[in-house]
């Protein structure tokens, strides 16, 4: 096969790839790959999912192929992007819909699916972009665009499958795993749209090209949504392993000992000061620094705002966005949000508030049908850890001026 060396391929180390020349040239030109060969390539490339959980794509593909007896499997593209701080998936669907659809088609062939779904936020402009793109493609795989209601957890994989099946857009308890029984009871492969675009690049340019940037254990590039107190906001494509400080420098941020960055998204982790400097853009590089790669969010906290007040605002949102089906998520996130609001705004925030948040953050872990409580709890614990000095200030002297200002402006 000529997949490993393509003379038309742009130099692999030239970035952006997905959002640059390489993506532009490959888009809409997916060549069929012999059944089974793509799984081998996915393995060799070490590609992991970009929707947050970071699971190896090859393993998911294999699980679906194993489960496919007489039932034809289904492939689902997750382009819902309910994370309010993330815009990478919308950008991909708007600017490179064919690359996403190439990946979707390739994976459909690989598992033997003839039917696929593409979930997009209801009413989003991307609906038109992908619909237009679909009209210009062969119909070997029937792709239906599904508009998904606006709720944070509606884009969690089981909620998305339930919605496609005509049910409510809320998560369900697994097992059965999606790979065994998903849409219409069929084995179902669910992938984030950035993952699909990466699959298309990999199939077009080959493993060698794919692995030429990034790191041995996490090759390739990541899309990041860089926003907040930055000079140049936008979606950046960076090689895995790039220091977070370099990304921030590119965005025009002057790092100091106090710079605080929310990494991963609302279900992610706060990083501050030295931790920001020690982080790099990969799952391992973020985890080691106490951050999270998550959905690729890098949001810089404006220096004039109160981190506790910001966190309390997000905590309130996350508690409201719980599907409310699981007791520990429903009551646990409500309790966590209340404790965070107390810390941020009450004049008599007590010294135990931070410990209560740590205790409850731990207590909600693994207690729901989906990972919403795990992410929310981890996010809140990271706030009281990263901003311990602010916590002490609020406990000793009540809400700071910034928190009070934020409360007034929210009314």
């Amino acid at each position, binding site marked *: 096969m000529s997949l490993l060396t393509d003379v038309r391929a742009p130099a692999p180390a030239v970035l952006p790839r997905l959002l640059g020349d390489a993506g532009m040239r490959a888009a809409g030109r997916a060549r069929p790959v012999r059944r089974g060969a793509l799984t081998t390539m996915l393995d060799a490339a070490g590609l992991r*999912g970009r929707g947050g*959980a970071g*699971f190896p794509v090859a*393993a*998911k593909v294999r*699980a679906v192929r194993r489960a496919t007896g007489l039932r034809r499997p289904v492939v689902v593209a997750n382009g819902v992007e309910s994370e309010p701080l993330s815009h990478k998936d919308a950008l991909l669907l708007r600017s490179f819909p064919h690359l996403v659809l190439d990946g979707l088609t390739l994976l459909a062939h690989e598992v033997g699916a003839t039917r696929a779904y593409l979930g997009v936020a209801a009413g989003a402009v991307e609906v038109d972009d992908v619909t237009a793109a679909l009209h210009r493609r062969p119909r070997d795989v029937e792709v239906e665009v599904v508009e998904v209601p606006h709720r944070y957890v509606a884009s969690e*994989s089981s909620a998305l499958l339930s919605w496609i099946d005509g049910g409510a857009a809320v998560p*369900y*308890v*697994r*097992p059965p*795993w999606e*790979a*065994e029984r998903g849409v219409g009871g069929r084995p179902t492969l*669910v992938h984030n749209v950035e993952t699909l675009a990466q699959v298309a690049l990999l199939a077009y340019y080959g493993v060698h090209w794919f692995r030429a940037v990034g790191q041995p254990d996490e090759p390739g590039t990541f899309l990041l949504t860089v926003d907040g107190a930055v000079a140049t906001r936008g979606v950046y494509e960076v090689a895995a392993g790039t220091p977070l400080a370099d990304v921030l420098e590119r965005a025009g941020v002057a790092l100091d000992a106090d710079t605080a960055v929310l990494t991963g998204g609302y279900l992610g982790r706060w990083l501050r000061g030295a931790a920001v400097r020690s982080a790099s853009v990969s799952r391992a590089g973020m985890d080691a620094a106490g951050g999270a790669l998550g959905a690729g969010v890098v949001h810089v906290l404006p220096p004039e705002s109160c981190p506790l007040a910001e966190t309390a605002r997000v905590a309130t949102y996350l508690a409201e966005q719980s599907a409310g*089906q*699981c*007791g*520990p*998520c429903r*009551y*646990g996130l409500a*309790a966590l949000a209340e404790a965070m609001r107390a810390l941020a705004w009450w004049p008599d925030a007590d010294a135990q508030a931070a410990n209560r948040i740590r*205790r*409850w953050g731990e*207590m909600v872990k693994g*207690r*729901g*049908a989906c990972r919403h409580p795990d992410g929310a709890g981890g996010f809140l614990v990271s706030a009281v850890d990263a901003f311990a000095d602010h916590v002490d200030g609020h406990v000793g002297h009540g809400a700071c001026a910034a928190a009070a200002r934020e409360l007034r402006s929210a009314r």
Partner: protein
Amino acid sequence: MSGAWEVRVDPIECAGHLLCVELLPERLRVDDWGYPMVDGRPVSGELLAHARRAAAACPTLALRLNRRETGKEAERG
């Protein structure tokens, strides 16, 4: 074969009656909101009978007794 069992709570079905915690305190604790937490340790021998009774007593059938499957986790994503 007898050692490989574990208790699980279906978080959607569980209504927090806590009958289970009374019947199986060896593996279940109550959280701060009145819902049972499993500790994840396997259930075997004499305890298995207690676990079966607790599962049967759950009004919503939310307490499940499963064969401990290893390697299954690897398929989630």
